[in-house]
């Protein structure tokens, strides 16, 4: 209950009442919207619960962690319920002739972009795109990395060296370069493509970590004993090794979400992100880049949003790591 506050809950309730019509629309609306909300709503709380459990065991308490989790809640809420919260449709052109690149004002708290679209709405919807991409991609890459790393560590021999040399090679190419090359393979860049590409190019470090952890556990007596009892390799991986390497993986995943948000933003900035009209934060920056001098807020605001989100994930990840590493 430490992380639950009544004031935000009250605000949330007020919001529900004030926006009940939008909520009804949202519930009746397209499946995709609800799926995205679900993704964000499930993955992050699961992460937070794991993080809290780990930190609670080691009794780490810090104001920073509390602040980070509260901020994350707000972000997640905004992302999940974008259709309810956003004042405008993010693709709606308000008035091309008269409302282009308006500075922040009461009507448009974050101003408008060059197509006279409301920037606040675009930011809220962008949160969803950026967060969902990062979360789905990290899920994919952690799963992939853990599986391959554990298999490499447990089997050893040729499989191990094949996997490890491929990983060495993949890690030798700088991430953005690799992404730029791999993204050229897809002729359309919808969200799933980006998730896939980010996930498929992000598992290498995790695999190394998982392998190292497995190697340190492989000859521990409880694993040997399990094998002596006739437990199969798959079950050893799943029941004995995975639970024991989960903690460092949770740290990697949490820190990885932040890094993925940065990478995705970088790709969008290079014009390799998700295509319009659903903009991620990175592509809002890209769209605003040419208006840097005339409408600096278009570039500035998403940058702050990205930095804040990454900070939140870094703080949580590092708190968990501190909790695991008593020094």
């Amino acid at each position, binding site marked *: 209950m430490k992380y639950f506050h009544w004031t935000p809950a009250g605000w949330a309730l007020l919001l529900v009442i004030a926006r009940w019509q939008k909520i009804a629309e949202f519930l009746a609306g397209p499946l995709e919207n609800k799926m995205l909300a679900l993704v964000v709503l499930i993955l992050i709380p699961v992460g937070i619960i794991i993080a809290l459990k780990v930190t609670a065991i080691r009794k780490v308490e810090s104001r920073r962690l509390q602040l980070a989790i509260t901020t994350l809640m707000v972000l997640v809420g905004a992302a999940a319920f974008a259709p309810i919260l956003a004042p405008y449709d993010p693709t709606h052109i308000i008035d091309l002739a008269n409302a282009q690149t308006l500075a922040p004002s009461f009507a448009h708290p974050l101003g408008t972009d060059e197509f006279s679209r409301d920037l606040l709405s675009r930011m809220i919807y962008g949160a969803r795109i950026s967060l969902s991409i990062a979360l789905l991609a990290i899920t994919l890459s952690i799963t992939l990395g853990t599986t391959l790393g554990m298999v490499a560590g447990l089997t050893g021999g040729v499989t191990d060296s094949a996997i490890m040399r491929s990983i060495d090679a993949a890690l030798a190419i700088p991430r953005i370069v690799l992404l730029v090359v791999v993204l050229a393979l897809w002729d359309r860049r919808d969200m799933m493509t980006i998730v896939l590409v980010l996930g498929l190019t992000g598992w290498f470090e995790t695999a190394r970590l998982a392998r190292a952890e497995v190697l340190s556990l492989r000859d*521990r*007596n*409880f694993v*040997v*004993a*399990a*094998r*002596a*009892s*006739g*437990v*199969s390799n798959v*079950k050893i991986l799943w*029941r*004995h090794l995975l*639970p*024991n390497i989960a903690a460092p993986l949770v740290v990697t995943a949490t820190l990885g979400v932040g890094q993925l948000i940065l990478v995705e933003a970088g790709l969008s900035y290079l014009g390799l992100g998700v295509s319009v009209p659903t903009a991620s934060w990175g592509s809002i920056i890209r769209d605003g880049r040419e208006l840097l001098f005339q409408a600096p807020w278009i570039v500035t605001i998403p940058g702050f949003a990205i930095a804040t989100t990454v900070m939140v994930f870094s703080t949580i990840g590092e708190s968990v790591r501190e909790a695991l590493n008593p020094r």
Partner: protein
Amino acid sequence: MSTSQALVEVTDLKKSFGTGGWRDRDNRIRAVDGVTFSVAPGETLGLVGESGSGKSTIGRCILRLTTPDSGRVAFDGVDILALGSSEMRKLRRRMQIVFQDAVGSLNPRMKVGAAVKEPIEVHRLATKNEINSQMLALLAEVGLDPELSHRYPHELSGGQAQRAVIARALSVQPDFIVLDEPVAALDVSVQGQVLNLLASLQRARNLTYLLIAHDLSVVRHTCDRVAVMYLGRFVEVSNTSDLFTSPLHPYTAALLSAVPVPDPKKKRNRIVLEGEMPSVSDRPSGCPFYSRCPHPKKNDQCSNVAPELREHEPGRLAACHFAEEPLSI
């Protein structure tokens, strides 16, 4: 030695470990260097030696937890090294291992009950409904409170953990258990309890043990026969009482002289070994024990020709050129 009805039969077992990868043949450590023995059903064979002498490796080879380089391991007449992995898994039900580090041999993220249940599930030895009651019965058999089944390993004491490990080993109703220094990490007070438990379990379940120890005092009261290892080879194999009264090999004699005796007035000839065990990677050409041998008669023959393990008295084998003139203790 009654080979006909042996449960476990090990012939000329060799195992070496590399340090520098597969190209590095010179640097290999011969942990086990041609060992032959057998264990009869219901018997307890003790395996004694200093750390690094290769005794744990033998235990692991028998269970095929490591694959030996050469030699034969037969369990109940079946060559286990020739078995496929699924047949091997079936056979594992009949042979179990208990390690020195009890807490470490339990998965820290698994509750004790689950750990005991796991082998039963793997070998499908009980229906879903019975598993739990079987587990509780096993805990009771090893003298553990059923409440403890909900605990994590780090919440148990060393003795409790070792009992849990024994319960897990028993869960598959094995015939043969390798006890790899089962009490070495325990408090002396607990050591006796666990040894007694093992002995009573052996009687009740007609178990066969291979008891690995670096400490002769543990072996004395629990083993029928004892094999003494030095540098990957057996130097003496004998029934327990004879070994303790009149050791044939000077190394055994030296080990025995170090064992504290209950009667401090009894006069003893203490044999102190000089130097350290030579590194296993640069094995001397003659008797491996030559450099440290306290025997007054050791000579050129000892330094040049490695003595074979020969039967000197019925049921008593030793690898020493002067086995007929043993050192007295």
